[in-house]
């Protein structure tokens, strides 16, 4: 029998990574910008937080500094894309690539263990030792608060302008909004959340590793696609809720896949296949419908031909008139 204790770890991870997925939601859905910076800012957040914690800084402060570092990374991608006109995908890849070196510099080595260090989780556990599932509750609270703050932000004047920047840039420019500034701000905000999530994950798993960012954006996309596929709505409130739910479902799917004997090394390909399937589904559906329709048309036309309704051999130049209709 599956107990809650068994899957609570997956839910915790889902919530921690869910904050990253909210960042991906901002770029992918709100700005309609495929931002690969995420693979660099996620480990950046972890690297900054871990280095600060090891050097004696409060884990809470470390999380905030990690977030600011992520915002800088996002702003850089935004700058490359808007001011230097580098294609969005490439701008993200360039920042991500550069950040790999930056992350190594920050950490001074490839891996920083946090096992005997204070983290936001150990500090809260000392403060509230009797609360069951404290780690889960802390992550749930953080994820929900961030989700609600994001909802509120996207309903402000700036938030509306940011959404319109992704939806209809000419329109919002004609209403007096600097869409370049909006893109930079949105990428910055998104990567701030991603780095914050990276800082939490490092403390949760007990280490920061320079390679922990690989595939982050795909995990984020999987969460966004699963979540907004389950909770279909135009409303921001529902979409962000869906993203968190999607992130948890993704972790649970991995948990069950591993239990069924999948190797951890196969996780990435499973995630990639999942995202491919989700993205391709609408196209495949349409294709399938079209093929069925053309089969129908073909058989109908074969009947028309056989019945002599059209295509009768006729004198050259003679056009069949409407009497046969």
């Amino acid at each position, binding site marked *: 029998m599956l107990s809650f204790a068994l899957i609570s770890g997956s839910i915790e991870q889902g919530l921690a990574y869910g904050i990253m997925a909210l960042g991906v939601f901002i770029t992918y859905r709100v700005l309609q910008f495929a931002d690969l910076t995420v693979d660099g800012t996620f480990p950046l957040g972890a690297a900054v937080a871990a280095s600060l914690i090891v050097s004696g800084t409060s884990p809470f402060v470390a999380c905030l500094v990690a977030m600011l570092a992520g915002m800088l990374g996002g702003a850089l991608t935004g700058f490359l894309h808007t001011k230097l006109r580098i294609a969005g995908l490439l701008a993200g890849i360039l920042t991500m690539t550069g950040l790999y070196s930056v992350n190594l510099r920050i950490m001074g080595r490839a891996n920083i263990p946090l096992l005997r260090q204070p983290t936001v989780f150990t500090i809260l556990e000392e403060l509230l030792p009797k609360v069951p599932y404290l780690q889960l509750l802390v992550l749930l609270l953080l994820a929900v608060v961030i989700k609600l703050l994001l909802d509120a*932000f996207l*309903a*402000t*004047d*700036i*938030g*509306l*302008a940011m*959404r*319109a920047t992704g*939806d*209809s840039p*000419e*329109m*919002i*420019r*004609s*209403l*007096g*909004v*600097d*869409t370049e500034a909006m893109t930079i701000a949105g990428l910055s905000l998104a990567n701030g959340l991603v780095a914050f999530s990276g800082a939490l994950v490092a403390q949760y798993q007990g280490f920061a590793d320079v390679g922990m960012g690989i595939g982050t954006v795909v995990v984020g996309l999987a969460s966004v696609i699963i979540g907004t596929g389950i909770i279909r709505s*135009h409303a921001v409130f529902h979409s962000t809720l869906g993203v968190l739910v999607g992130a948890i479902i993704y972790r649970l799917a991995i948990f069950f896949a591993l239990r069924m004997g999948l190797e951890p090394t196969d996780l990435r390909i499973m995630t990639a296949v999942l995202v491919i399937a989700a993205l391709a589904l609408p196209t495949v559906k349409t294709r399938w419908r079209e093929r069925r329709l053309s089969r129908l048309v073909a058989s109908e036309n074969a009947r028309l031909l056989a019945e002599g309704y059209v295509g009768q051999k006729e004198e050259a130049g003679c056009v069949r008139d409407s009497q046969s209709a």
Partner: protein
Amino acid sequence: MLEIANLHKTFVVGGVAPRGALAGVDLKVLPGEFVTIIGSNGAGKSTLLNAIAGVFPVDRGIILLDNEDITLQPEHKRAAYIGRVFQNPLQGTAASMTIEENLAMAMRRGQRRGLKRGLTARSRKQIKESLAVLGLGLEDRLQCPVGLLSGGQRQALALVMATLVRPRLLLLDEHTAALDPTTAEQIILLTQRIVSQEGLTTLMVTHSLDQALRLGDRTIMMHEGQIVLSVSGPERAQMGVEDLLEEFRKLRGVQVTDDSLLLTTSA
């Protein structure tokens, strides 16, 4: 009042002959004047509107709006006093956002946008009132995403959004060209009503010669990046579509047909 002098713009596209460029445009539009602009494809009509709106920097020339030099202002800055409606209804509204969210954004035109809520009880009431005037029932569908509206409804919405905060200048770039004739006529009527009610200074590009003569106070014709004809008053009132074509032939000394101008004579 809009004053334009000696406006030049050339698009350099890898050795291809420049198209749709401006070759010294001089234009003065009086306060409250409604000017219709016609001309063949590539004459520079849309380029002129885009230059005024600041979509790209011009090569030479000056643009004054109410005696303020806006020539070098970025697009989003001058958007504070210029309202625009595009040809493509998809361009003028945000499809994934609701009707009220679209209008809330239009209400903030020219103001600093901060972290205040975009929609309040008061702004909702104002939005409802401005939509009720249209008579399309949109005021009862405030939460409906704009993407679910028809092209005509979206264009009506775009028109309301462009004029919600009274602009010093309204630019209409063939804003009925993508609509069916009946819907186009409704949008034209709406345009007339809003422009005359608010006394807006307006420039409207159109492909319909009939529309160009029927609407507004003055009609100008563009050709190869210049204004080649400007008619207003009684002279314009007596003009027909054929006369316009004749004027074009006289000015250019070439044999042109309605087709070669790529203009439509119907509404």
